[in-house]
């Protein structure tokens, strides 16, 4: 869908990567200065890389060797910036309609009325951008990009400027967008939780190079790549279905590897959940532990032990068809004699499965 090959040199820094993103949301993850913004700016046409080739759905928008470099306004690539960048002299309605007049006639990815409804903008249409909160402005910016009839969207840390309450307010809109509007999205983020909730593919960028790229599930469960997300935040994604909401407030979620208990008050019975289990929250035991408080004790098989990063290491575990990551010390790995193929028990406290790590999937 989106083919990117780039080489770009800055003072003391070289970006060099090639990736071929499928549809859905592709998260471009990396820490500050990893080169994420350079990639999206090159895709949008706001930055001309030294060397590169970029094609969207087969249409070449940049090919430095062939001398092709489409201007941003000819690329039909929507861009949601970190700051909303709304036009201050236009009201919300005119901001939303801004792009449509430049687009070819015909239906876009979403109708105006539906975009307004989906993003909850009905009450804001006649307001000016200066009178909007950060969260409202972010929603308007998203609607404005969607209504410009783009063939794909770029999002450059659209939530980074918002506090955590506003983030929690916006994320569900992004999920609706992902599930309803089938538009390929390149989503730049340095928040692992956002990546885990939204992305179908993940590209892990480190110092201008691609450290890992693939389906979100595989990359998030890759013990070799996990360190790139930061030790505390790394963790595999598993999916399950809510089968019961117990009277003490815990939900019982059936996964491929057995039942997991967690707190998910908003999920109705039958809902499909995606949950990220942070590696640091997983404890391993060789024998089935008894008389422990941890509610979730799952039978797992060690698949792979990653390379040590200081005193800690990520261990990939098979939970039925699902994959789990556990972050352990190298000392524990040695003490337990962990190796590929060993069967053991993984313990996860129900309370460590926080609601921000849980997503309802359509």
């Amino acid at each position, binding site marked *: 869908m989106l083919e990117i090959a780039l080489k770009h040199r800055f003072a003391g820094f070289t970006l060099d990567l090639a990736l071929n993103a499928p549809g859905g949301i592709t998260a471009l993850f990396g820490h500050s200065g990893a080169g994420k913004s350079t990639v999206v700016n090159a895709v949008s046409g706001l930055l001309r890389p030294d060397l590169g080739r970029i094609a969207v759905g087969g249409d070449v928008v940049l090919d430095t060797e062939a001398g092709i470099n489409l201007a941003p*306004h000819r690329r039909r690539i929507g861009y949601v910036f970190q700051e909303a960048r709304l036009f201050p002299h236009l009201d919300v309605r005119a901001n939303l309609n801004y792009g449509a007049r430049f687009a070819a006639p015909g239906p876009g990815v979403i109708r105006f009325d539906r975009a307004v409804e989906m993003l909850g903008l009905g009450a804001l249409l006649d307001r000016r951008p200066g009178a909007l909160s950060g969260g409202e402005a972010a929603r308007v910016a998203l609607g404005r990009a969607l209504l410009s009839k783009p063939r794909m969207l770029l999002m450059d840390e659209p939530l980074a400027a918002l506090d955590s309450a506003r983030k929690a307010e916006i994320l569900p809109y992004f999920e609706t967008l992902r599930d309803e509007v089938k538009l390929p999205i390149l989503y730049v983020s340095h928040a692992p939780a956002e990546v885990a909730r939204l992305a179908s593919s993940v590209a892990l960028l480190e110092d201008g190079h691609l450290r890992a790229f693939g389906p979100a599930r595989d990359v998030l469960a890759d013990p070799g790549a996990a360190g790139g997300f930061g030790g505390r935040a790394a963790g595999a994604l598993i999916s399950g279905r809510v089968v019961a909401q117990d009277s003490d407030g815990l939900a019982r979620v059936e996964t491929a590897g057995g039942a997991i208990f967690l707190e998910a008050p908003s999920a109705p019975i039958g809902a499909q959940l995606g949950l990220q289990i942070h590696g640091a929250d997983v404890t391993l035991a060789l024998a089935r532990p008894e008389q422990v408080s941890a509610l979730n004790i799952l039978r797992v098989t060690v698949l792979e032990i990653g390379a040590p990063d200081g005193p800690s290491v990520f261990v990939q575990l098979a939970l039925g068809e699902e994959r789990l990551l556990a972050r352990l010390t190298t000392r524990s790995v040695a003490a337990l004699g962990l190796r590929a193929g060993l069967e053991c028990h993984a313990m996860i406290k129900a309370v460590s499965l926080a609601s921000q790590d849980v997503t309802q999937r359509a």
Partner: protein
Amino acid sequence: MTLSLKVAGVATACSLPLGVAVAYALARGRFVGHGLLNGIVHLPLILPPVVTGYLLLMGFAPNGVIGAALARIGIRLAFDWKGAALAAGVMAFPLMVRAIRLAIEAVDPKLEAAASTLGASRFWVFVSVTLPLIVPGIIAGAITAFAKAMGEFGATITFVSNIPGQTQTLPLAIYSALQVPGGESSAVKLVVISITLALGALLVSEVLAKRVAARIAGRDA
């Protein structure tokens, strides 16, 4: 009085489009000769007005380089009100460009980049984003230029002389009135008119400046 308004009005109106174009080029353009253009624009501000007037006279007199060409198509500038407008326009131009350039520089280039990703070409970005945001700056620039044009003396008297009814603008009339015995009373009248016009222009530009702030902040006006 009417002549002064006509001269200043024509000077401002004719130089405005050029002023916006030059201000945009100076604010956003990166090209060879940027510094040179900046210097030429500011020249009338630094040079003694008499020198500017003399340079205009050399260029636009009927036997001057440009003047001869204009004379062939029937336009006479020297010693004519149109020449007074030219002199006033040239002298006011740097002030106009500075005001508009400041307004353009206050427009966040990120907004223009956003517009381009929404499908607007460079022309449309200017028309639909940059221009509306700088309208108050343009008006402020025009008013400053108008006030400067009303008061222009040195270049005007050098270029088009001081011909009553033809090139005698308000400041020239005040000067002339002071040259004749007993002319003080008519000079005072002219001075009062002059002060009123200047204060009026200042007031209008103040109001507009407030509007700029509100508009760029995106508040409801």
